[in-house]
């Protein structure tokens, strides 16, 4: 398994997709922060870098889907998964090592967003107004949330043996998760006196979605449900990982 992981990590750094994803994250976060600090209107207060952190994570949902389905889709397309099996690795090892490599790539993106936002945010925008506890919670939630998302995208990428279909399915899933997460937080933030207020079973449904959806967890991270959300995400990752392994093991590879 170590050989598979080592080979996967080396390939991860050899492919362009990771660097393209990091460049996109820079354009979304870093460049915007530079623009904001240079062209700000006089008298207008600077935004909190925490907002850039969240927008970076939102972009990462899509980018991690793109990276994983492309990275593992290539293995299907080039037939190189066969080399791994023929080199004496069973499907279980191939699946787990693919998950670990993809998780490492997503964590690199996550680290990049953190580093970029913290450095540029401190230098250009004056630093976070979030407390240290809030930042720690957000980092833990991003770790658990992206672990679950990685498990989902790896499942799609390895069990759908066509790179193009897998990529489209991954991107659709990423958009669905993003829309669902943002919409849920919006619905739940409507004040009780508003006619659009969601009450009763509808509210309970949205609260449940907020609890399990990594995007809504990250957006509403300061609502005091951090530990519960993290555990749910990690449990979800474990379920997705196990389901993916069973599906992959019982599938005939092309």
């Amino acid at each position, binding site marked *: 398994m*170590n*050989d*598979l992981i*080592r*080979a996967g990590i*080396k*390939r991860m750094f*050899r*492919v*362009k997709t990771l660097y393209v994803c990091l460049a996109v994250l820079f354009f979304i976060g870093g460049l915007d922060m530079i623009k904001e600090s240079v062209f700000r209107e006089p008298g207008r207060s600077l935004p909190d870098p925490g907002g850039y952190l969240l927008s970076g994570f939102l972009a990462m949902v899509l980018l991690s889907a793109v990276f994983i389905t492309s990275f593992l889709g*290539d293995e299907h397309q*080039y*037939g*190189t*998964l*066969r*080399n*791994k*099996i*023929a*080199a*004496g*690795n*069973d499907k279980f090892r191939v699946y787990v090592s693919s998950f670990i490599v993809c998780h490492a790539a997503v964590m690199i993106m996550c680290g990049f967003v953190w580093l970029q936002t913290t450095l540029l945010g401190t230098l250009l925008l004056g630093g976070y107004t979030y407390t240290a506890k809030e930042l720690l919670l957000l980092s833990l939630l991003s770790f658990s949330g992206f672990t679950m998302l990685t498990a989902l995208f790896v499942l799609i990428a390895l069990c759908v043996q066509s790179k193009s279909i897998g990529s489209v399915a991954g991107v659709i899933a990423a958009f669905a998760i993003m829309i669902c997460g943002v919409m849920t937080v919006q619905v739940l933030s409507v004040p009780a006196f508003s006619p659009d207020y969601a009450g009763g079973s509808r509210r309970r449904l949205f609260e449940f979605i907020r609890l399990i959806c990594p995007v809504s967890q990250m957006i509403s991270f300061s609502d005091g449900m951090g530990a519960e959300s993290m555990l749910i995400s990690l449990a979800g990752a474990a379920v997705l990982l196990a389901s993916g392994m069973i599906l992959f093991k019982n599938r*005939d*590879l*092309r």
Partner: protein
Amino acid sequence: MEYILKTDRLEKKYKDFAALRGLTMHVPAGSIYGFVGKNGAGKTTLIRTICGLQDVNAGEYELFGVKNTDRCISRSRRRMGAIVETPSIYLDMTAADNLKQQFDLLGRPAYDGIGDLLNLVGLGDTEKKRAKHFSLGMRQRLGIAVALCGDPDLLVLDEPINGLDPQGIIEMRELIRKLNRERKITVLISSHILDELSRLATHYGFIDHGRIVREISAEDLENACRKCVRLTVTDISALTAVLDEMGIEYRITGRNRADVFAKPVLSRITRQLDRYGCDLISADVRDESLEDYYISLVEGGSHE
């Protein structure tokens, strides 16, 4: 005889289609085993199965003496290199990077030998050219180099000459011969291009509708396909006595039939047969090619 690969009544179904129907075959160590069959006969299904890409529904196989039901089967696959349908290479990498990737995968600590491998398959001068810019023949050769990274004892090649130009076919043939001769690698090569296989194989397995219809060594096949005269007589014992007396090589192929491997003077044979009261009914010249042999196997049932 020592066998590197043995299969026993393998069965594989894809929904309603049975791709393997009790396939039994034996690949001797050190051989170049030509796996012959038309498209859809089950060649690739068998190769996928022994490579561990899919499981069978029934039957079993042994690879290097390890059964497929044994937990160690994955480890025994380390002694095998394979190209299944298309070469398994990263098209966005150079030839050397592809080999480095495979070395990493196999846990080989250093990249020693990559240059030698590239030279062996004739890709020593590709430098920074990415595999996506390679010709089909170059990709096939790179695929073989990747398969050779683990110093395999068995090389499985699924239709390696498909789509190659004449020069590419010659190079591929020479490479396979070299690997078999110099590195003592057993080669299982599937193809439906019989003429090409006949220049390479030391053993054959003819597959049709998911079953091996005949396994035969190249020597036996050559004998079976030798030019001969088929004599049909009224009394086979009389014919054998006459042919023995005349010192002519022959093979009895039926109750009143024999193939004679010489240019017999029929009038002399007829005169001799008269002494035994035996009549010569017919004499047909037979010149069978590998293609004829294959067709008679898959279309005419058993070959006599």
